[in-house]
């Protein structure tokens, strides 16, 4: 018997990593058609205090009767006591979740994944690029950075959506634009009405904003989250503009069942998205086939 293997068997029984904690829905807000924000607090008061996460991490939430789904935490760890999730209605489990109301009970386990390297980013510029629902994990990062603003240099936020209607966190994003300590560039796929125009006069793809970012690429960390099809183009544009691929971090989605490296579904190349990701440096495209 090998020593390392024997050790594994001699350990005491660990706690069950798949067992979730009960949580109460405290608030629900409709953000855009088919998108809602849910706020939760754990029934176990202690857990509310001890809960910690890193922006970019996700939780597995049990939607009663329907099953578990991975959802990024969209609230910042700097704001304790509640965790928030942004959920798009896309299928059987999210449909059921969307019918739930404040006061209903769900179960949550996590946080899982690696999260954005917020500490490594300290002392550098940060460029945040969000497409559509990709704002969810990045919202956590945005507020984390803003709450610790002095630790970071320049901060840019690029946000692209289909139209004004599908903009998430409209008020928040509007307020951000007014802050002097962040630069916000918003863009819409197509400007079709007055509402759209009032939001921004920029029309086109998110990639078009990248050359306008006035930062020293070598001194900048980039965080990207968007629809899977967008990564290739955004990645290419960032490299073209001189951002080092080890400093560009993308948040990826895969099918997930367990969140802890046991079910296999989320594999990208030799890595598990759930434990080795979901945040990957662009550099990993070299190692991981079909990453983007």
């Amino acid at each position, binding site marked *: 018997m090998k020593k390392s293997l024997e050790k594994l068997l001699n350990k005491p029984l660990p706690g069950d990593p798949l067992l979730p904690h009960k949580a109460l829905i405290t608030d629900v807000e409709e953000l855009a058609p088919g998108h809602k924000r849910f706020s939760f607090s754990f029934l176990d008061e202690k857990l509310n205090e001890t809960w910690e996460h890193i922006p970019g991490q996700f939780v597995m939430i049990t939607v009663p*009767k*329907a*099953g578990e789904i991975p959802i990024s935490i969209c609230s910042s760890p700097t704001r304790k006591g509640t965790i928030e999730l942004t959920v798009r209605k896309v299928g*059987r489990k999210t*449909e*059921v979740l969307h019918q739930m109301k404040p006061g209903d009970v769900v179960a949550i386990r996590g946080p899982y994944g690696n999260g954005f390297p917020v500490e490594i980013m300290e002392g550098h510029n940060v460029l945040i690029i969000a497409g559509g629902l990709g704002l969810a994990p990045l919202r956590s990062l945005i507020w984390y950075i803003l709450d610790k603003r002095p630790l970071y240099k320049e901060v840019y936020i690029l946000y692209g959506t289909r139209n004004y209607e599908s903009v998430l966190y409209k008020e928040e994003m509007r307020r951000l634009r007014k802050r002097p300590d962040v630069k916000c560039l918003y863009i819409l796929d197509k400007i079709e009405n007055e509402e759209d125009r009032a939001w921004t006069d920029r029309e086109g793809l998110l990639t078009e904003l990248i050359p306008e970012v006035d930062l020293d690429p070598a001194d900048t960390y980039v965080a990207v989250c968007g629809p899977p099809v967008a990564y290739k183009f955004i990645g290419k544009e960032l490299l073209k503009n001189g951002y080092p691929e080890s400093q560009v971090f993308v948040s990826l989605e895969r099918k997930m069942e367990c969140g802890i490296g046991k079910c296999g579904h989320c594999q990208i190349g030799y890595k598990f998205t759930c434990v080795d990701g979901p945040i990957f440096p662009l550099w990993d495209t070299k190692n991981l086939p079909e990453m983007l």
Partner: protein
Amino acid sequence: MVKIGIMGLTGCSGCQCEILNCQDALMKLIGKVEFAYFPLAQDNNTFDEEFDVMFVEGSVTTEEDEAKVLKAREKSKILVAIGSCACYGGVQAQKNDEASLEEMLKTVYGKTELFLKVSKPRAVSEVVEVDYELPGCPVDKRQFVYAVSSLLNGVKPFFPKIPVCHECKLSETECLTLKGIPCQGPVTYAGCGAPCTSQGVGCQGCRGNCDFPNFKEMLKILQENGLSEKDAVAFLKVFRGYQGREIKVNDEERRNEKGA
């Protein structure tokens, strides 16, 4: 109370009988659901109110079938096709693409004028929108109960379309294909528990296609196991109804297959 209907079109009523065999589940349902329409099992059947869930068995083959299923769709929030006739057209649809209706009628009845007005057998989904399909000949009891309990709880059921080989492995059944017995398991949607193969009979494909079936290799293997190409195609088409159109014999047609 939740209103349920169970309707039979052209078929053998085997699926409805199978439902009646789900005694434990049916007993639990009494008091929670109302079987407002189930002519096979009860006398007083109404079609006047809205149904929460309507289960439809059988293929759409007569004018009456069509009228019934159109009305069922109109009256039901959720419409579930049960059994391979309702899901794919059933055994009666296996020659749909090879013969005209007239030829079929002449062969079977010796005449083209019947007392009913008939069309070629069609799957329910070829006539109206279907929310869920529970294939099988007959429908699988456990799947039916799972679908009912999910739907009653407001959750959509989840049925991954994996091949029957999965269930052979779970029951550690010796692979018949490897023994030279024609078996359709590798291209057939699991969920039955592999009762045929565990009894030594090759899978007959009654549950229709799994996701992205590899018919090319299946045909090759069936031929290696003793069937002519024509017989192999006919064997695969017995239960698949309209899905049988996915069986392509030449490479040109196969080129653009999804998931290939």
